[in-house]
């Protein structure tokens, strides 16, 4: 099949699934709905594989399949086509999206089967995939933006899926509006780039990227990329717009796995990698990205330490891991960022689905304080979860190790890196190891704190198969990008990942000046892995062996613990400083400006007219003699005017 056809099917298949399920949204036939939806994604997955194979068959420099369906907008010199492109970067993305997507769809059949809105759920899920595919395949920033907003919409619908709960509906709204703040910046970023380069086509933009670094903060490329990055902080939940993601856990758990871990939230990273030639020439933007990424990685990890909701822990962990990806792209390690994006998609989707399996088993209980000892009830879930846990804390040879290690190495060694960035990353990794182990310990290990009325049970195969597949991927997923030092040590395993992405990744111009030795790399790797191991061990002891140790630590830290436990009061600050004042100011605007100033001013004018009217009216008082007097006065005035003038 031609690649145009494949891309069309790839895109339209989920849309068809959406329509098929959407028109019969009242149905509660979960099997039919699930089969349609999963089938649709599976078709897309097949197309994605076919496209990937086609790409592999091409010489590296020509790996670029494009298609343009129609001219979408054309005004003046602004022309945007409904054009899509599959190249090395987007091929990886579509494989992840449709691959992980179909697993999650499959899982959903089991997870959502008792829900009345199951057909609607699958419709939304398919619609999300459609938008996500547009996002990654779009050949111009505007086409990407279509998907960008579309996934935001789906996220809104799915977070507020159980809309009868006011808090869940509010979480959906919060997600959409927070994303919109980023989107507004994204729009401005597009304008800046369009006005500078005269196109929004990403391939052309990359080709037009200047060769000289922009050192000024006010340069067009710097400002444009900075705006795009603000857009990315919204979508990918970075400081300062990360607040929506933890709340987004109000949605069904597979949604959290698909949208809020594996795919949508990585869109920001993807966008930056996609436009890497532009970002490279704006070192200031890159610096901001790296700092924001590192700060988010640490901040979210600290909040993760105190959360008690299994999904919230994972959510903060996602925010933190996304911080790593931004740290990577911020120091110019675009390949490493993409690499972590992929491995994270595997192990985080796995862990979210695992948590879904746990929640399913616990009858909708999400509080890890009421779990414990679930290992024996949920053996498969536990086993796969352990794989995910090992991957995320960066134990070799699990997937997360390779990608995280590469990021940390670049944070230190890249010409745009800094030892402080590495330290932040290492602290983040240590914290991650701690809170993930805490999560494992409280959920699966130790003694059971499960309520007597609840009888946990292992999930059905339809849910455990996706877990197993993802578990496998969490183990081997990192092997495609084994760093040089290790591969030389083990025996020349080629770094597929780097070769694959090479044609599209711009090398940092400063790169050649600094040389780093392999010893350094080994040393840093050793430090981060041992830090993670120690902290994981500490957490394991604290939460399984020594009951009460955790509380003692919490008490010892007192106010700091309280601050972290309340998520640094960021939500409260946003409400107190921005939202509430804005709403009350709006009320004032309405009451004072509209009602009191503008309307009163118009009333004043009408009063004036009315006053004039009543004055004239008083002249006509019915007294004929006075009327006669007016006539006389008039004649006198007219005559005297004629005489004088």
């Amino acid at each position, binding site marked *: 099949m031609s690649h145009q056809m494949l891309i069309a099917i790839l895109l339209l298949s989920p849309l068809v699934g959406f329509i098929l399920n959407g028109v019969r949204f009242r149905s509660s036939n979960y099997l039919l709905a699930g089969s349609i939806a999963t089938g649709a994604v599976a078709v897309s997955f097949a197309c994605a594989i076919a496209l990937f194979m086609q790409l592999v068959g091409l010489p590296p420099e020509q790996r670029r399949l494009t298609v343009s369906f129609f001219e979408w907008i054309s005004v003046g010199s602004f022309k945007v086509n409904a054009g899509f492109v599959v190249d090395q970067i987007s091929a990886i993305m579509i494989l992840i999206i449709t691959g992980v997507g179909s697993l999650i769809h499959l899982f959903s059949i089991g997870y959502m089967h008792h829900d009345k809105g199951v057909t609607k759920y699958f419709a939304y899920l398919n619609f999300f995939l459609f938008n996500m595919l547009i996002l990654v395949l779009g050949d111009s920033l505007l086409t990407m933006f*279509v998907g960008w907003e579309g996934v935001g919409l789906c996220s809104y619908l799915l977070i507020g899926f159980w809309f009868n709960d006011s808090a869940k509906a509010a979480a959906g709204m919060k997600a*959409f509006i927070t994303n919109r703040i980023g989107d507004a910046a994204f729009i401005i970023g597009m304008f800046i780039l369009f006005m500078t380069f005269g196109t929004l086509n990403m391939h052309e933009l990359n080709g037009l990227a200047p060769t000289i670094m922009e050192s000024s903060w006010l340069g067009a490329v710097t400002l444009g990329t900075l705006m795009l990055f603000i857009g990315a902080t919204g979508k990918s939940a970075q400081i300062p717009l990360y607040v929506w993601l933890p709340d987004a856990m109000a949605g069904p758990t597979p949604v959290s796995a698909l949208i809020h871990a594996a795919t949508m939230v990585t869109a920001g990273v993807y966008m930056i990698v996609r436009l890497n030639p532009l970002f490279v020439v704006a070192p200031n933007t890159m610096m901001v990205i790296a700092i924001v990424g590192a700060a988010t990685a640490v901040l979210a990890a600290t909040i993760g330490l105190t959360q008690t909701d299994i999904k919230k822990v994972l959510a903060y962990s996602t925010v933190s891991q996304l911080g790593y990806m931004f740290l990577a792209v911020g120091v110019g390690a675009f390949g490493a960022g993409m690499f972590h994006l992929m491995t994270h998609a595997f192990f985080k989707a796995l862990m979210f689905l695992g948590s879904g399996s746990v929640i399913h088993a616990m009858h909708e209980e999400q509080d890890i304080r009421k779990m414990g000892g679930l290992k024996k009830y949920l053996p498969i879930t536990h086993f796969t979860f352990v794989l995910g846990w090992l991957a995320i804390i960066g134990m070799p040879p699990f997937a997360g190790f390779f990608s995280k290690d590469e990021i940390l190495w670049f944070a230190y060694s890249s010409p745009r890196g800094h030892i402080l960035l590495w330290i932040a990353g290492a602290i983040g990794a240590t914290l991650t190891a701690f809170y993930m182990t805490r999560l494992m310990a409280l959920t699966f290990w130790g003694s059971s704190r499960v309520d007597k009325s609840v009888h946990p049970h292992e999930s059905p195969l339809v849910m455990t198969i996706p877990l197993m597949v993802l578990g496998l991927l969490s183990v081997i997923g990192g092997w495609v990008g084994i760093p040089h030092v290790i591969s030389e040590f083990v025996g020349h395993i080629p770094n597929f990942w780097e070769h694959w992405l090479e044609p599209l990744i711009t090398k940092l111009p400063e790169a050649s000046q600094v040389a780093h030795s392999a010893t350094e790399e080994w040393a840093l790797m050793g430090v981060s892995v041992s830090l993670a191991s120690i902290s994981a061990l500490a957490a394991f002891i604290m939460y399984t062996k020594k009951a009460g140790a955790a509380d003692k630590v919490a008490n010892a830290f007192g106010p700091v613990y309280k601050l972290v436990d309340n998520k640094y009061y960021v939500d409260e600050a946003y409400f107190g400083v921005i939202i509430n004042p804005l709403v009350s*100011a*709006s009320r004032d605007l309405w009451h004072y400006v509209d009602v009191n100033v*503008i309307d009163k001013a118009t009333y004043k004018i009408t009063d004036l007219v009315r006053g004039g009217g009543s004055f004239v009216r008083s002249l006509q008082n019915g007294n004929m003699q006075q009327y006669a007097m007016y006539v006389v006065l008039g004649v006198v005035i007219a005559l005297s005017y004629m005489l004088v003038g």
Partner: protein
Amino acid sequence: MMLSLLVFLPVFFALVVAIWPQKSTVRHLALGFSIIEFLVSLLMLQKFDSNSAALQMVEKVSWIDRFGISYFMGIDGISLMLVMLTTFLTPIIILGSWKSIDQRVKGFHSALFILQTAMLGSFLAMDAILFYVFWELSLVPMYFIVGIWGGSRRIYATVKFFIYTMAGSVLMLLAIIFMMNLTPEVTGGVMSASLLDFYKLEIPFISGDFFTTQTMLFFAFALAFAIKVPMFPLHTWLPDAHVEAPTPGSVVLAGVMLKMGTYCFLRWVIPLFPEATEHYGWIFIAAGVIGIVYGALVAMVQPDVKKLVAYSSVSHMGYIIVGLFTMNAYGLNGGLYQMLNHGISTGALFLLIGMIYERTHSREISKYGGLASALPIFTIIFVIVTMSSIAVPLTNGFIGEFLILLGSFQYSPAVAAVSVSGVVLGAAYMLWMVKRVFFGPKGQLVLESEKDAHHALHDLSAREIVVMAPLLLMIFWMGLFPNHFMDYSKVSVDYLIKNKMNYSFPTGAEQAHTEEK
């Protein structure tokens, strides 16, 4: 004769409806008539040559010779779309008011048809006085529609609406008469009210001096149109009028009448007073930008759904004003497109609010809640329309808003930076409203309806779905294939931009020449 037929057919319909003997079939008759009118407009669309910026289907008959006033009509790409919008919305309005208007049905439909004539006339008139007649005529039926079929404070609202608009129109009339007195310069001694002769005038402009002819005329015209739009701070009549108007009245008002203001900026102000527009455009851009933010903020805190949508109109119309006064291709095309979008999405919102009002007899947001489970189809449609209103891509709203923002960025990045906040605020007030009305636990109204079998909430009827279907179709069609629509107006708008300093409709020969280039 095409245009005259189009404009005056509704008058004939109004008469027939008024004297129709059978009360029960008046609605069917009116619906049939409005569909006929739409078909006629389609016929016209089909005859229209979209490759030409020239004035087409011209009709000119002398009317009052002494003052050079003539019956002069013509159509170009700019007016075409608005004419289509008018004829498209009317059947929808009639079908939408099937149940809500149950008194003086004949009178209502007659008024609606007269209003249609007035609106079409003011889009098509190319003679200043003829235009003025239609412009003022549009007030009369609207006055009755709000005043007779409106809510409890309808008299206050109609009077406010009438006086506001009238105040602006008087200034415009003065300006028109003044310009007619200038025309002998270009016509060789004869007075003329033809827009084409107005275009030929070179009205003196001295930059910086407010009391020059062009500046004064510019403000006289612009004020009249700005009130109609309505532009901040002249907007306060709009929320009142919308809240008190019956549903069909609100739809016409938001859907078409507001566009008369913005359309006239394009047709009259920009080509007639190019220097003044360029020089004082920033005032309107500033007012538009304030309107965007202000309308959105005030909409956010409204307790009444209809008032919320009314204020959202202030915000959306602010976008259009900004777009038009940027005077570049993006802003003007986007502004024109946004006129259609706003007509469709806000019209749809008012229809939907009308439908829910028929069921619950309340518009207070705080009394709603949990409607989504009671009325699923209604909710789906409402959310789709909401998405169009807040300009989510692949709906019509996005194209217009994006182009306007792009145009404003070209005009000044600062303007775009402020306007873009409307994107966020728009989402905030609409989604917050959606959340409070549809989501969350069942609110007071839903609970009451569950107790009382008589007032049980029914989801949309087949008629109501038919009302919404064309609007939903347009939302996606216009979002996916904007070129299908813009192709009709693009040539005219581009021609306006290229020749704005010395605008006049191209003749056939000129047109051919520009195309060769």
